[in-house]
């Protein structure tokens, strides 16, 4: 097993796996969703599924910010990028995300000035160095990156920089989890809660999942052992008939999150009434926009935004993958028409997307599944 060969704590892992197996009621099918794409990556990279008893299935959730950007928003950003005097900036992950009419890379090839940045602060720096240009930062990400965007707007404001704005596509994790809980497609038993998002929002916002839906959620770190440990904690809760929010990742995640980061988001941004998620459709109060007080930094106020809705290609089944209804390899175009080099859907773009993670690391598991079904 790759995981055991590679990992320094193989003994601990084996012990955990044994305890996990012992806790499973024979014949019961357990479905746990790992919300965060970082976890998906770890699971495939280390072949963790091979390591769990057959009763336990891990399904992948919507927690990959690049994956949930709808095509229409990519098109809007490209429209802005083509305006005279505009420099569009975004994270590297964004460059290959397909819109209705190509990606940032395609737009760049057609002459738009689009630059990859590591931090929104880099975009602000570009604005300072190019006073004659309008520099737009395409902001993406959950609450992990939203505070950085907010802090950058505050910095721009403090320094009186007027040629910088944000095309805000920040999304919030809780409404997405709620949408999945309310979706009839999927019966889940528990959640492996996101790690880094929780550094910002803390553990309290998940309490309704345990209280109102009766499902355990364990906030979890990113190492293979963390995930096994969290699966064990979930099974313990289920065996004892409990549903609680637990923090397996307390060494990084404070129960109350990061108050300063939350305050920065609050100061600069406000919730949108609704926002479209690729594959999931419109979800109420699930995204952030630049608030009225900082409207001069809001690209949606400065530029005319076409705002078109673009349906995903019919061959694309990212929606089902993002909801955990389909496994990546069950998509008809997986690995054939859709690969990381030529992605059709967004889940194939970011390394945290389930399809890309599976494409890069998961082939072993797939072989096994094939064998199992052949028998």
């Amino acid at each position, binding site marked *: 097993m790759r995981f055991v060969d590679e990992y320094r704590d193989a003994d601990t892992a084996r012990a955990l796996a044994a305890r996990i197996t012992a806790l499973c009621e024979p014949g019961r099918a357990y479905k746990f969703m790992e919300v965060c794409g970082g976890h998906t990556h770890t699971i495939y990279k280390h072949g963790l599924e091979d390591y769990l008893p057959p009763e336990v299935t891990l399904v992948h959730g919507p927690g990959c910010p690049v994956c949930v950007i709808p095509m229409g928003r990519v098109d809007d950003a490209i429209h802005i990028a083509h305006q005279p005097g505009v420099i569009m900036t975004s994270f590297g992950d964004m460059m290959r995300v397909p819109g209705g009419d190509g990606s940032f890379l395609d737009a760049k090839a057609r002459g738009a000035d689009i630059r990859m940045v590591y931090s929104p602060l880099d975009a602000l720096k570009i604005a300072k160095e190019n006073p004659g240009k309008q520099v737009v930062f395409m902001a993406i990400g959950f609450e992990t990156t939203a505070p*950085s965007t907010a802090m950058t707007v505050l910095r721009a404001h403090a320094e009186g920089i007027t040629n910088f704005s944000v095309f805000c596509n920040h999304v919030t994790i809780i409404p997405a989890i709620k949408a999945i809980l309310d979706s009839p497609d999927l019966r889940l038993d528990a959640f492996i809660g996101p790690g880094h998002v929780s550094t910002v929002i803390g553990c309290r916002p998940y309490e309704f999942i345990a209280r109102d839906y009766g499902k355990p959620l364990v906030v979890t770190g990113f*190492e293979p052992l963390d995930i096994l440990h969290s699966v064990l904690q979930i099974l313990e809760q289920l065996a004892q008939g409990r549903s609680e929010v637990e923090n397996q990742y307390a060494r990084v995640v404070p129960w109350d999150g990061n108050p300063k980061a939350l305050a920065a988001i609050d100061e600069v941004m406000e919730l949108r009434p609704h926002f479209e998620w690729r594959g999931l459709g419109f979800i109420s109060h699930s995204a952030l926009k630049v608030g009225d007080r900082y409207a001069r930094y809001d690209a949606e106020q400065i530029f005319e935004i076409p705002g078109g809705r673009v349906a995903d290609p019919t061959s694309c089944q990212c929606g089902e993958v993002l909801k955990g209804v389909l496994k990546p390899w069950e998509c008809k175009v997986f690995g054939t028409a859709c690969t990381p080099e030529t992605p059709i859907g967004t889940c194939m773009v970011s390394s945290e997307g389930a399809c890309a993670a599976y494409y890069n690391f998961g082939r072993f598991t797939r072989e096994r599944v094939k064998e199992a079904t052949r028998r």
Partner: protein
Amino acid sequence: MCLGIPGEIVEILPDRPDLAMVAVSGVRRAINIGLLDKETVAPGDWILIHVGFALSKIDETEAKAALDFLESIGQAYDDEIAALRQSMIEQG
């Protein structure tokens, strides 16, 4: 972008107390520490960095474990470090 990268604070810049020089995987970069409690950060502390901002303080053991883990995931981490190297966050 979603990866949290551990770094060690080398120096807090006197004229810009929201910025610190941080050693990250052998690179020295200015990192914004404005989201941490100022009183609690000092040189020698380890922090977890997202897109140029420190989001939380961690201990050294966690930092080492996180680095080992990041190095094990390969390409995504290499890309993030390459982006960080090119980052232009001002140095004071």
